[in-house]
């Protein structure tokens, strides 16, 4: 299924949920409003035409200039009808969900794709997005008592952690060299 067809199908099924569609470019996606996202996710996974059963990745974005945070869900289809036959038919698609930067809340889709469990924990840990109805939302990579969300653009590197001093004195070299 081509990205245009997936966009069209989603727009007809969920007219009120689609905020934006981007078909051009290297990464076509549909932007979904957060409150309808679990319904759209269930449809993407269960619909026989789409069957996007593999959640590849959740990339959390900090859109500082718009004062928004976003999650990009990269999905893919694996055809499982005849497992021992090599089926190269597939389609990939992405969904984007944006939320307010000061009160970032997105519904969890861990019940649709169990793979989302750890990806959402990572987005919570590094970007500070809270996922409602997540089975076990706690930090995954940073220690539990870490302060702040490192992947935010305005994150300030701590100068001390449990008595261990740190420095931000060393500037990274200019990449234009």
């Amino acid at each position, binding site marked *: 299924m081509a990205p245009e067809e997936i966009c069209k199908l989603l727009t007809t099924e969920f007219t009120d949920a689609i905020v934006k569609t981007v078909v051009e*470019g*290297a*990464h076509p996606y549909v932007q979904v409003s957060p409150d309808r996202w679990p319904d759209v996710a269930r449809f993407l996974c269960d619909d026989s035409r789409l069957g996007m*059963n*593999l*959640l*590849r*990745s959740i*990339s*959390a*974005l*900090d859109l500082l200039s718009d004062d928004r945070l976003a999650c*990009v869900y*990269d999905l*893919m289809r*694996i055809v*499982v009808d005849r*497992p*021992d*036959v*090599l*089926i*190269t038919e*597939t389609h*990939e698609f*992405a969904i984007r969900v944006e939320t307010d930067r000061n009160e970032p809340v997105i519904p969890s889709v861990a019940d649709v*794709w*169990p*793979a989302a*469990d*750890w990806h959402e924990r990572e987005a919570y840990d*590094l970007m500070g997005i809270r996922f409602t109805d997540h089975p076990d939302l706690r*930090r*995954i*990579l*940073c*220690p539990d008592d870490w302060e702040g969300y*490192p*992947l935010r653009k305005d994150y300030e590197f701590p100068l001390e952690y449990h008595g261990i001093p740190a420095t931000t004195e060393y500037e*990274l070299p200019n*990449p*234009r060299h």
Partner: protein
Amino acid sequence: MTMADTVLESAPDLLVDTDRVEQGDLRTEEMLVNMGPQHPSTHGVLRVVLRTDGEMVLEAIPHIGYLHRCAEKIGESLAPYQYIPYTDRMDYLAGMNNNQAFAIAVERLCGLEVPARAQAIRVVFAEFNRIASHLVSLGTYGLDMGAFTPFLYCFREREMILDLFEAACGARLTYSYITVGGIHEDLPAGWVERCLEFLDYFEPKIDDYNNLLSFNHIFVKRTAGVGVVSVDEAIAYGLTGPPLRGSGIRWDLRKVLPYDGYEMYDFDVPIARSGGTDEIPHGVVVGDCWSRYYVRVLEMTQSVRIMRQALANLPDGDTEAKKIKNLKLPDDEVYVGIENPRGQLGFYVRGDGSTIPSRVKARGPSFCNLSITTPLCRNVMLADVPAIIGSIDVVMGEVDR
């Protein structure tokens, strides 16, 4: 004085109140056991908290992040060609494949054409690194199961591969050889012949590993029928690579979404089969630890096949596209996944018109494959936990990034 004259008298244990100890007074309450982060069978710094009842593990909860370096944040302050050395420090057993994944993501974002010679050499090194990585996996998995000897054989061959890597790029583990726009340098003189010589030597060795380890009765007893994952479960938890094919589905990104000219090569995608058929030992169930292990053995043969084809038809020409250093990233985004030895390695890269990406996200196969630990280690024997974790074959550098 003879032995018979000696009266042996055991010293009373002062700590035990003999009046209170009765036969059969064994407590059977649940206990929390901390496995790792420095446990040898966790392959790096993985901590698993086990809730045990005697020998049974009721629940296993992995705790990760001990190697976290926030590599994604570093990617937001460096130009792509400067970020290449950070990618091979994620999955340090498959540096070539990691370089390749990030390079392809940036090339797709910028619309760069990679010369045919560079693509073919990339395929050679990606497959060569796959063999090296699977050799570590095989060897250490044997080690986890108590077989020391296969480890030495696997590492003997891996050393030779690393020597060939060193001859081509000067590094033995973190190569940074595959770079944005092509490869760093062309092959040195005589490398192709040395490589072909090694492949002739290596191919029969796979039978040795099978005789030493794969079909070893004790090894099969430890791994067959343990930690079974169904196809649906594997896909739901985002398992890819050998763990997915070990669940019996023929699916490989090199076939499904070919990159770097994989569509030109003739190779099979091996999958797991149940025990009793052909050479597969009795007791093996599709989706168990032995299946995941054996898929890796079969993949090495296929990698040799691909390498032979690529080396036989190496095109002439450039090895790098021009003007890489001042590459401006367009205001766009891209997600590219490739088939790493451990599964699907993806990079999400977002540009904003400058030379530095505004977001780099790595989707590591080890990270996703490890997330199935808790459902898989429910109500198993304690000794099966290393068997299950070892069969997933994780590299903690890439789990934690």
